[in-house]
């Protein structure tokens, strides 16, 4: 059995070294990929996966190529958040599992009860514990954070990435005072479009998810128009960049010409033209100023190169430049029409409960007013307005949600889907449109509500029966928010300190003074960068701080890590301690093995010395 070819392969040093080399490559590439795809994606796709996919690998290679100034095509944000590519390299889990198998196989193959090898076995056991411990921690650990400012008291931490739709029902005592809240927390992964969610603790409520956005921004009717205006501006800027490139090229060509054919007078004028160009480029887009600057370049070209006004090589005579200017003018017109629409129909745009029909007819009225405006309205204006109205109506139709209940939905009538984020310092703001039903409610429907974690606003969900009095059945509060992890005690922030090395802006120490109230006497604890607070299975690390306008540290963020516990024969062992236990076992094994050989060596040396002494004595006696 122990000579089985597969066992031999698994226990070969070459395989283990190959796996360790692959691990190093994964660590290197994973680290490189953090910049283009963010820490979380990098962890998930390189270390916490069975195989690295082609897109993650491409991101890592792109970043690596930057080190050597090689040109590779960068990946787009759409690619990062889109479907993963095909597997191209072993992932952390696969290498970890294979290493585990190799170690176990080696242990199995070479194990014989022998004091001589006990240290090696212990070392193997320790390494197996380390790998297993790391896998267990990766799978079961819970990470969150507490953000506080001086004087805040909190009994919960919030998740970095996970969200929940929480329904809170106040529980009152006999005197009618609210003593607690029952929370029914629906995790974000259950909020799938079309899903209907029920739970016995929801007292008959059923929640149908009509729409769900992983990342979305909420818009009022007015903001919808403003966004359109902003997009026209962005498009205009893109075209302007091309115009600026052309103008810059023309100016450079004139400079080069004057370098070869020196003319101080022309050089001076060209410098002025160039200064004017940079001024236009740095200012807000303005067609009139751009045209004026282009005219100056045109005139300058005539003077420098001695060309006639109708020469087709002059900048203003270029067909492509003229087409670009027409585009700029069209975008500018659209922006002006958007501003006009906003001011002319301000009342409708700012009214609450703006329906899609109301928005549509408002846009049509506006178009009609422009067409019938007393005096002359140019065809260009009429056509531009038609174009704007068509676009804004189609956009409104696309984004309209029209929740009929709740403060959020009444105010924000439109929801724009955004690309999910992946950078470590960003987070998605999901939104959901849900219809709440109850069997005793009128038409069995309580209403349609819009929720968004970007607002974190608690909305009242009143359930009333179908009677004439509309008697109140339950009054829930509901909110879509970052997932709350209740920590089981109160944590208050007393003070925050952001120490710098004297005379520099280099941080020396961050510390947060907190008061822990967990049933015993309140105690004050100072959390520093490498001195976390450990309480009730959670560890609170000092993560970051923010300053106020005066430069004083004002808010602190503590990272909270919870590792699961398990019981062995009545002892509670935290999984967080597994790596430490593994390290102790490895150290004990190595020390044992080293000492065993050292002592053996010392014994042998002593024995040899005794033998040599005896031999000398024997030789001496013989000589005598």
């Amino acid at each position: 059995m122990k000579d089985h070819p597969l066992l031999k392969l698994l226990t070969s040093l070459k395989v283990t070294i190959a796996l360790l080399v692959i691990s190093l490559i994964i660590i290197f590439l994973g680290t490189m990929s953090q910049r283009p795809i963010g820490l979380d994606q990098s962890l998930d796709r390189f270390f916490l996966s069975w195989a690295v996919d082609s897109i993650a690998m491409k991101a890592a290679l792109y970043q690596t190529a930057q080190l050597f100034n090689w040109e590779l095509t960068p990946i787009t944000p759409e690619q990062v958040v889109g479907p993963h590519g095909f597997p191209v390299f072993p992932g952390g889990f696969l290498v970890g599992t294979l290493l585990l198998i190799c170690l176990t196989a080696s242990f199995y193959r070479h194990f014989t009860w022998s004091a001589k090898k006990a240290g090696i076995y212990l070392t193997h056991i320790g390494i197996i514990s380390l790998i297993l411990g790391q896998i267990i921690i990766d799978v079961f650990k819970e990470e969150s954070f507490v953000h506080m400012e001086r004087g805040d008291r909190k009994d919960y931490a919030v998740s970095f990435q996970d969200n929940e739709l929480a329904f809170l029902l106040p529980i009152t005592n006999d005197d009618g005072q609210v003593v607690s809240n029952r929370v029914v927390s629906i995790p974000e992964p259950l909020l799938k479009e079309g899903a209907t969610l029920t739970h016995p603790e929801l007292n008959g409520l059923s929640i149908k998810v009509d729409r769900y956005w992983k990342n979305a921004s909420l818009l009022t009717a007015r903001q919808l128009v403003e966004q359109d205006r902003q997009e026209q501006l962005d498009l205009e800027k893109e075209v302007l960049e091309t115009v600026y490139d052309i103008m810059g090229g023309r100016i450079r060509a004139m400079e080069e010409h004057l370098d070869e054919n020196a003319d101080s007078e022309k050089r001076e004028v060209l410098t002025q033209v160039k200064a004017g160009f940079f001024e236009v480029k740095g200012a807000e887009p303005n067609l009139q100023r751009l045209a004026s600057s282009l005219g100056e370049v045109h005139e300058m070209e005539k003077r420098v190169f001695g060309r006639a006004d109708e020469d087709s090589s002059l900048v203003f005579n270029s067909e492509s430049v003229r087409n670009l200017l027409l585009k700029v003018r069209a975008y500018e017109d659209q922006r002006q029409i958007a501003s006009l629409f906003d001011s002319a129909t301000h009342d409708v745009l700012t009214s609450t409960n703006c329906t899609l029909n109301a928005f549509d007819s408002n846009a049509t009225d506006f178009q009609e007013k422009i067409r019938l405006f007393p005096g002359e309205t140019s065809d260009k204006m009429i056509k531009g307005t038609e174009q704007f109205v068509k676009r804004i109506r189609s956009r409104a139709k696309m984004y309209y949600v029209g929740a009929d209940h709740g403060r959020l939905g009444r105010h924000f009538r439109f929801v724009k889907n955004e690309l999910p984020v992946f950078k470590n310092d960003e987070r998605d703001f999901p939104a959901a449109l849900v219809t709440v039903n109850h069997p005793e409610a009128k038409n069995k429907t309580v209403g349609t509500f819009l929720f968004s974690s970007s607002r974190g606003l608690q909305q009242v969900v009143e359930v009333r029966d179908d009677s004439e009095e509309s008697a109140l059945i339950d009054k829930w509060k509901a909110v879509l928010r970052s997932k709350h992890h209740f920590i089981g005690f109160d944590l208050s922030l007393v003070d925050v300190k952001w120490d710098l090395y004297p005379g520099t802006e280099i941080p020396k120490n961050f510390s947060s003074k907190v008061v822990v109230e967990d049933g015993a006497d309140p105690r004050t604890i100072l959390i520093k960068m490498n001195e976390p607070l450990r309480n009730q299975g959670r560890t609170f690390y000092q993560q970051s701080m923010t300053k106020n306008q005066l430069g004083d540290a004002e808010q602190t963020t503590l990272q909270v890590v919870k590792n699961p516990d398990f019981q062995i024969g009545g002892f509670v062992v935290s999984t967080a301690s597994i790596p430490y236990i593994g390290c102790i076992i490895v150290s004990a094994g190595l020390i044992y093995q080293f000492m065993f050989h050292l002592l053996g060596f010392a014994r042998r040396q002593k024995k040899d010395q005794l033998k040599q002494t005896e031999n000398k004595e024997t030789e001496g006696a013989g000589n005598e």
Partner: protein
Amino acid sequence: MRPKLYEFKQGMTLNRIIMGVIGGVTLLLSACSQPPEIEVYTIPAEPTPPDNWGFAERFGPEKERYEITDSFFGKANVSLTVLQGDGGGLLENINRWRGQLGLEPVEESGLEELLQPVPALGNDAVLVDFTGTSQRSQLEERLVGVIAGQGELTWFYKLMGAPSVVEKSREGFLAYLPDWH
């Protein structure tokens, strides 16, 4: 060549070991891929301000600010500020508040008679109640302020605005203070 029986058995044992390790790790990893379930738990009642307090943009070091609007009598603001230590001292803060209402500062000796106890916030909490002319709006305004030292921090609660609105809101304001963190 046909494998011998012992070789076959050895192969089976080895397969079991390998499959056991792979299976164990896969099981462990799949544990986290289970779809999460709806959780139900109970939390202590969250303090909620009186219904007629609307959220307002906070100023400077304030932690929270609310606005109370009465369509007939005007409006008032409620704010909470937490400062380190004694926050600059009791006398200085009371005189600062008096200054906001155009009132003369008081001396240390005259302070005692202005202070009222607030038992719900502990022995160190004091309440002051003044009416004067607001230096900002130049209208008559009333200020009900509570200063409560708690450990290394001092909490400043302030209700200030149109006298009628302050009068109507005073009871709710004082009732909310013990829960207001």
